[in-house]
């Protein structure tokens, strides 16, 4: 049978940023397949240079509108490490809470608004408002809760205000945390309903596997999100200082976002990578979700990243309650932040919703940033998306052109790529 399939999908929809899929096949053979990233570069590493340490995190936050809290935290950690600033236990707890808020917000946005329409065979969440109103309003309730949580801790839902080098400009009042705890406790029923709706349609996710290397923060104390060492399923544990030899960024002509590689041609970061590396430390509610969906480590199906995100939502909801209780037990204190400016280099790593994120700064004796490097989760996923496409596309060639395109688009979406962030 002689059949040619040409796909030239400019700007994959329901993802953050601009990415194209170009594929040509002839007589059941792939001739070329390319994941392209035409996103407009913004040159943040240059924009940060010359800026005062007090402004760096507020500029770095603008790398991404969806994971601005993770960028702020990686930025603050890098600046604090560069200047030898020690932060309090209260600050660490509040920062972890802020990161949970963003993780819940981002994952619900992705699974609920961006990925779920594929499970229902529609183009967006909008038609579901009529056909599945309860599911949509439940998704919105969880999304709103996560945003309210960000607002309480960070002063705003997008681009945090209160997070600063050494601590906070303002901490939440105890009543605010108590009311948040109540809302979190009430959220499990809503989450269970959302989770059930997704589970009922989960067979729409393709059953595709390709083993790769998974990289993320790891810790022996907890499911690592705010802090830890670099973990790889191929090479084990590494110090954060080794991040350059793990990521090995390089430029390809068809992408304004850099690519990375470690032990293989590509590796994966994000919720599925974290699950594969750290699943034993997930809180009970998260473990229940994994069990319901049959997600077990190691999982080599990138589409299950959607499920790993749901697992993390349950984990973060439960862990947030635990953190709030610790904060209230200790009593909240308005801590005065004293920062001694000193020159040095510092690296900060956190798990953003889409994977491990590094900021690396050199700060001079006046507290100005003189050199910056940022390696973004989606940077680290681009090569893996390409390699997955190369393996996945040949299995689709018996399908119609539109179905092939739809499946490839779903593959990209499964990574929840944050493309403008990756190009930065």
């Amino acid at each position, binding site marked *: 049978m002689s059949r040619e399939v040409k796909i030239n999908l400019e700007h994959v929809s329901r993802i953050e940023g601009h990415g194209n899929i170009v594929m040509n096949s002839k007589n059941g053979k792939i001739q070329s397949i390319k994941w392209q990233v035409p996103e407009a570069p913004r040159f943040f590493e240059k924009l940060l240079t010359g800026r005062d340490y007090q402004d760096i995190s507020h500029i770095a936050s603008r790398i991404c509108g969806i994971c601005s809290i993770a960028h702020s935290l990686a930025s603050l950690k890098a600046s604090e490490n560069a200047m030898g600033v020690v932060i309090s236990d209260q600050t660490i707890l509040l920062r972890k809470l802020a990161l949970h808020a963003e993780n819940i917000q981002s994952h619900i946005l992705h699974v609920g608004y961006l990925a779920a329409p594929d499970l229902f065979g529609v183009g967006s969440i909008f038609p579901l408002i009529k056909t599945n109103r309860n599911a949509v309003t439940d998704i919105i309730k969880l999304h709103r809760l996560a945003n309210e949580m960000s607002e309480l801790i960070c*002063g705003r839902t997008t681009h945090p*205000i209160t997070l600063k080098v050494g601590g906070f400009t303002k901490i939440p009042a105890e009543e605010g945390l108590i009311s948040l705890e109540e809302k979190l406790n009430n959220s499990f029923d809503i989450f269970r309903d959302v989770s059930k709706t997704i589970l009922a349609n989960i067979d729409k996710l393709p059953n595709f596997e390709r083993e790769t290397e998974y990289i993320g923060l790891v810790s022996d104390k907890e499911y690592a999100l705010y802090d830890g060492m670099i973990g790889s399923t191929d090479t084990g544990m590494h110090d954060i200082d080794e991040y350059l030899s793990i990521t090995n960024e390089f430029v390809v002509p068809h992408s304004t976002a850099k690519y990375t590689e470690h032990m293989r041609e590509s590796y994966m970061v994000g919720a599925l990578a974290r699950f594969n590396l750290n699943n034993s430390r997930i809180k009970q509610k998260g473990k229940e979700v994994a069990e319901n969906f049959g997600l077990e480590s190691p999982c080599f199906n990138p589409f299950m990243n959607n499920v790993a995100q749901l697992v993390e939502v349950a984990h973060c909801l439960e862990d947030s309650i635990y953190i709030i209780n610790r904060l209230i037990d200790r009593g909240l204190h308005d801590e005065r932040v004293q920062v001694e400016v000193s020159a040095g280099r510092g690296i900060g790593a956190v798990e953003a919703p889409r994977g491990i994120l590094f900021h690396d700064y050199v700060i001079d004796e006046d507290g100005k940033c003189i050199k910056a490097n940022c390696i973004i989760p989606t940077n680290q996923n681009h090569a893996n998306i390409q390699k997955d496409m190369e393996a996945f596309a040949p299995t689709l060639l018996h399908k119609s052109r539109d179905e092939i395109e739809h499946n490839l688009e779903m593959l990209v979406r499964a990574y929840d790529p944050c493309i403008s962030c990756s190009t930065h």
Partner: protein
Amino acid sequence: MKPKVAVFDFASCEGCELQIMNLEEKVIDLIDIVDVVSFREAMKENSNDYDIAFIDGCIVRPLDEKRLKEIRNCANILVAMGSCACFTGINGLRKQFTDEDVKRTVYGNAIIENNPYFDVFQPKAIDEVVKVDHYIYGCPIDRNELAEVITSLVMGKKPDIPNYPVCVECKQKENICVFDYGNFCIGPVTRAGCGAICPTNNCGCEGCRGLVNDPDTESELEVLQRYGLSLDDALDRFEMFCYQKGVVK
């Protein structure tokens, strides 16, 4: 018939687009009054048939310039959404460096010449390329202000964007002035509409919404001097979002 609305983005963090989804339950009400026909970040369908286009981000390459002009041709009303779109916002910081310098810093020695993806010029606000009908300021935009703009446009009214400084909203909130904490603030000359959200969180205004028309720079300098604060520090603050639009320079 409901007006058809489209949303597009250029060089930005897409945080302003996210504010649409951050309207939460209000999104359901909004799609009762408008038909969203193109919104790549949220929907697969797209169309060139729309009345109102919302633009997030600024313009940095010929290929983006071309796409923006095509959008302008389709739209009756074009709204610049967020400070990147309105006056290049944080991207303006790039204007202190040459294009070659920024490319070398980020992409090193990689061969990117004659590659349209990397062919950047100095950041341009949307109105430096096409006519803009309305502006929604902020980094990010205030989602309630966005909802008001959409509602106004649907009713055929001119959106009411404040032209008074952040201090007015800050006073309404009865905040202690951040200058009294020893911080500096450019609230006295920055356009309000944010509800003085930064000063309310004990953080000086960074000017993300840009300057009010005819800012009173004399009194800002007076205020700085009164609190013994340095002009250089203040200039840094003006530069963060309004590079080359600094009122003191």
